[in-house]
């Protein structure tokens, strides 16, 4: 067997919230250094897949390995960008403070962030173009700005793998461009990115790797090889037609 280095290796993963499985028997190999889209219809289990990789949800069966080891041993190698709707933005804190939270993992228990961590957070804020909002109350940020703050928080983690749950949801074209540029830069730096994505039109433009998911894994591979009508139809149902600009 050829030993190829996989950033994430998923075997026989099955997840259920109540009775119906949300993910069924997923096998997935994500090579290091890809910018991968996870696509599929609503309820396909895309967010659940991300949460299962991160250990937020306990699977019924199967295993997830990050660079060959369980997630618990690799927490510092993985950064997570949740859906921005998953938190209450009326929480009493500032943009800078939220971004600083990205440093908490490497700090470990009890130790407080200091000037080094603050510097890292400020750099991340600058990267996402939010430096001027660093002292802004988070409830006063727009949707696009909130998304950038979450991205900055993940950047601070300085991880090898980035898992993002719909980072383009509800952001305007400018923010989307800004975010995708950062993602492409991360890939250039050798990072692995897994992005739950909804806009099929932009898949070929933004991503080099794609996974089709609908409770079961449909296909996974390079965008130029497998992003076709056949797989789209299998994932979204018979009537689904999408124009792919080639």
């Amino acid at each position: 067997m050829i030993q190829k280095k996989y950033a994430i290796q998923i075997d026989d993963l099955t997840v259920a919230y109540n009775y119906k499985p949300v993910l069924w028997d997923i096998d997935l190999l994500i090579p290091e250094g890809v910018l991968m889209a996870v696509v599929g219809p609503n309820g396909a289990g895309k967010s659940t897949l991300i949460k299962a990789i991160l250990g937020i949800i306990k699977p019924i069966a199967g295993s997830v390995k990050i660079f060959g080891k369980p997630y618990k041993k690799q927490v510092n190698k993985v950064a997570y960008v949740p859906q921005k709707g998953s938190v209450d933005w009326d929480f009493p804190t500032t943009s800078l403070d939220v971004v600083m939270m990205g440093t908490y993992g490497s700090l470990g228990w009890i130790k407080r962030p200091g000037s080094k961590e603050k510097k890292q957070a400020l750099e991340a804020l600058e990267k996402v173009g939010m430096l001027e909002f660093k002292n802004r109350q988070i409830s006063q940020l727009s949707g696009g700005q909130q998304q950038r703050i979450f991205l900055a928080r993940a950047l601070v983690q300085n991880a090898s793998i980035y898992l993002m749950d719909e980072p383009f949801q509800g952001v305007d074209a400018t923010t989307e461009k800004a975010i995708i540029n950062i993602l492409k830069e991360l890939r250039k730096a050798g990072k692995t990115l897994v992005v739950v994505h909804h806009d099929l039109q932009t898949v070929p433009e933004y991503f080099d790797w794609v996974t089709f998911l609908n409770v079961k894994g449909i296909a996974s591979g390079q965008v130029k090889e497998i992003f076709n009508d056949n797989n789209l139809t299998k994932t979204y149902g018979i009537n689904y037609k999408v124009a792919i600009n080639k």
Partner: protein
Amino acid sequence: MDLIDFFTNYTLRTITLGTAILGAICGMLGSFAVLRKQSLLGDAISHASLPGIALAFIITGVKDPNLILLGALISGLIGTFWIKGITKRTRLKSDTALGLILSLFFGLGILLLTFIQKMPNANQAGLDKYLFGQAATLVEQDVLIMASVTGVSLIVLLLFWKEFKLLLFDPDYTKTLGFNTRFLDILITFFIVLAIVLGLQTVGVILMSAMLLAPAAAARQWTNNLSTMIILASIFGALSGIFGTAISATQNNLSTGPVIVLIAASFVLISFAFSPSRGLIFREMRFRKNRKELHLKKTLTFMYRIAQNHDNISHPHAIRILNNFQGFTKKSLLKLENQELISLSGKQWALTKKGYEEAASINKKLGKSDD
């Protein structure tokens, strides 16, 4: 009793100190409950402690306040973990689980209390004081216990400050960073239960949750900073305790618990009305002022567009031509003249140089969005 008595009376001083400390710890831990959207949890916990109070008496046969509080603590904790278990394992939402456990435990508690009343034991009287609380029964030892629990929870809070803040804001993310969220959750919940149990003797089962929520809700109105909010909530809580005790001591026959809760509630009312950033009154005032300003700006830019058609920006125009414009009133014209943005003469108006520049900059600013 007059004010001098209040400061020299030893018993009263003990009681005041006790209610102040109780208010402070409730404000501090209540902030967590409010920010975790678990406001009702406090209510459920305090009601859930009632069967423990009754059982402690039935089992031991003595009315030792410490044993009774221990019973309340155990029963409160059992109730809390049942609530968490129900929410986690069934499809019931947390408000349903809270309501269910609250009424179940409270019902059981009342049942046991009536059972005790029928027991042939002269010692029975007085357990129902835990329903509404009786601050007058506070003794030095109670205050010492309250102070040490407050001290310990303060140390824990400072120690795990970063982890608690993270958990409050984004529990899933906390987990992905490798923190044991279960441990943190149990720690917070344990101290909330402890604070509630400490307050039962003073404020009682039924009103206890107000002690937890009111200072925190009031504090949230004044600040956008978590540590300031917790400090403020503690101060509001402590002040409620002090004022509540003072009022009930100087007015005959007013029971302390309800007075403390009413004072805490008035902190909430005042905060909701008068806080500068979130308060209703200032928000309404800001809203009106903004509308008026926008109105003036709109009128000015409308004039600017007319003036742009002429080489001379201060070319006079008839007021009549503004009639098509909805925002225009005589009052707004006078206001603009007061600000030297336009000049009026007879039935004519003209932009001043200042007005022209102002309008140009408004146009430019509104063309650029924030995001």
